[in-house]
């Protein structure tokens, strides 16, 4: 089975991401799975992202289980709502979390605003 989390970080690694243009700092992501902890470290430098598994302290640490993060990485779970209900915990600089959530994908299969397509469907 494909590792959704790894795919997500692969896509993020080494690219310049304008959505992270104002982000500077490190984010550690700890993912619990079957008694083991998978670790990711993101170094954010004004849009440039470096991804590693280095075990080092970070400015912001996110903790959740692997299954949840797989969903976040594919847009099936909303990261902010997950933080609000304690499914994902945040320690350290919350602003980095706010910036990082910008790069998570939206839910699949959305209708979207659909320019011009709603003519005549209005209620009265």
């Amino acid at each position: 089975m494909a590792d959704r989390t790894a795919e997500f970080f692969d896509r993020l690694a080494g690219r310049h991401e304008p959505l992270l243009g104002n982000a500077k700092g490190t984010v550690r992501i700890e993912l619990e799975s079957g008694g083991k902890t998978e670790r990711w470290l993101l170094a954010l430098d004004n849009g440039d992202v470096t991804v590693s598994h280095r075990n080092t302290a970070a400015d912001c640490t996110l903790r959740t289980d692997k299954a949840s993060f797989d969903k976040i990485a594919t847009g099936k779970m909303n990261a902010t709502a997950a933080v609000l209900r304690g499914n994902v915990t945040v320690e350290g600089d919350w602003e980095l979390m706010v910036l990082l959530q910008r790069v998570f994908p939206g839910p699949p299969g959305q209708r979207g605003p659909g320019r011009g397509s709603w003519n005549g469907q209005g209620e009265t």
Partner: protein
Amino acid sequence: MSGEALVKILDGNTFVVSDSRGDIEASLTDPTGLFAFDTRFLSKWVLTVNGERLNSLSTDDLNYFESRFFLVPGTGTVYVDSKLSVIRRRAVGNGFHEELTILNHDEKPADLTVRIEADSDFADLFEVKDALKKKGRYSTRVDDGRLVLGYVRGTFNRATDISSTAPAKVDEGGLTFAVRIEPHGQWTTDLDVVTAVLGSGETHERPKFAHAHGRLNMEANLERWLRDAPTLECDWESLHTTYQRSLVDLAALRFSPPIAGGRSLPAAGLPWFMTMFGRDSIFTSLQALPFTPSLAATTLHALGEWQGTRVDDFRDEDPGRILHEMRYGELPAFEERPHSPYYGSADATPLYVVLLDEYERWTGDRKLVRELEYEARAALKWIDEYADLMGNGYISYQRRNEETGLENQCWKDSWDSISYRDGRLAGFPRATCELQGYAYDAKTRGARLAREVWKDEQLAVDLERQAAELKRRFNRDFWIAEDEYFALALDADGKQVDSLTSNIGHLLWSGIVDKSKAKAVARHLLGPRLFSGWGVRTLAEGEGRYNPIGYHVGTVWPFDTSFIAWGLRRYGFDEEAAQLAAGILAAADFFDGRLPEAFGGYERSLTRYPVQYPTACSPQAWSTGAPLLLLRTMLGLEPAGEHLVVDPALPVGIGHVALLDIPGRWGRVDAFGRGRVDVAKKQQLRPQLEAAAGPGRPRR
């Protein structure tokens, strides 16, 4: 609540609403309680002495985060002859701290049973508003002399921790003190109520009460806030009171979003709206720019960080869209409400660019404009790529979240606000007129930023061309020629929604109105159908749905009128702007300087005083900001390059006005004016306003 006055104190997003005795006895639909993170942490907090409730003698709001209750035992008969006095002094922080003191005035010792009943329903603010049932599990435990109330639903975990300094017998319903007070002696205990928000897997150590910034710090912070704002000198005492009230309320409404790095921006209002709102935070920041520019900086920063980046139907989110509302409670956490955050606002996004430009014009802070270049471009792009639902070149809205999303995504967001003259409601999508004005303004201002700060001439030229084209089409498609005003909206068929509304005043503010049409618009705004004598009615008298106490269909909103006054001055209607300013500021006098969200649209000569809208939220940020914007408008303050232009047009009754130390890119400058615009001829002024005319009486 037995009709008693509510006492509200707050710090950030934590606030306490109690009755005048300091007691809280909330029902699911009653807004009293201790609230934090949009959750009620205490729904019951009742003090008794020897089993008796207390009577309020007086309540002091020491400041917005602290109050004091003077009480005596008894049942509320006319004459109270008590040998005991009870004083509760309460301050807000991460919960609240209460100093409870009982004085014995008798010559004999007093043996008392003092009890505090405590409980929490952990209701989400949305549940308080809509009366919904809870899905989680409650717990109550007595632990090491303290009472811990808890609520758990999956990983969602909230707790209230109650403790005292004096020894208490603690049970699951509260704390009991067996007290003996010597003759003329006193007894005191401190009570701490601490709110705890726990994530999964965290251990719950005993939390300590703390003011977010320490009490002395909070006092110093408020003093600094007032000192940093310009000083107002004026002959009219009431204006001075209103100005001070506005500054203090604005300080109280500052909100540091739990997810925004400790900076503060204006929340929308107390008690329901102590959170980040796109529209309200932007409008208030605009109003307050000449006085407290730091609010605008935080608003731009926080809203920029939370800008939409993906398509999400549940949240009505699109890339580039600025949020409507953020909430932290249980329902958004479990996605039973979309506010994490919710993006269903059609105006916040263009207004974001308007604020960014206006902020730079005042402060010269180009660093922030460069930092937010990506966000501002994305906002401009949203206007064309995501907001044009009908493909006709206009912003329109229709919610995609049909269950819990907002139907009306403009500032008049109640269900019946967008109607034709005959009262029929317009279909969706709706392209309300003011949205097109904001889009025009955003493009025009975006062009300036592109040229001067981002050094992108091509973008500047494109935006200017689009703005000119939009203006041309708008003046053709929205103009109702026979009556000479702009339609409220275009409906789903592109037909005009033809009611006469206050929205046309926002068009003047945005500059989208052709010069040749402005005079007719101004005439309508000050005409008998829209102008009540206090301000501009949201919907004109005579329209099908007009109701002088209808939320968006007849009431007067001070914020609305303040932007209209700004718009009138933009087109050179100085007298008309002065008249609106005089009306709203005179109304403020009736509310001791604190303007409500809205008041009745009744004719001024009929009621003689402004009738408050029944459930209006107060203080409310953009009502608090209205007197500030009116001051700016009356003094004609306008940045021009590195200078501040002052071009006063003040109503006659106001006398002399001086605004000293106005901050901006020029450092600090003073503005002076004297009332010369005779608005009394047109409209009866309050006697106070007339009497205020006369020789200047400097206050400083």
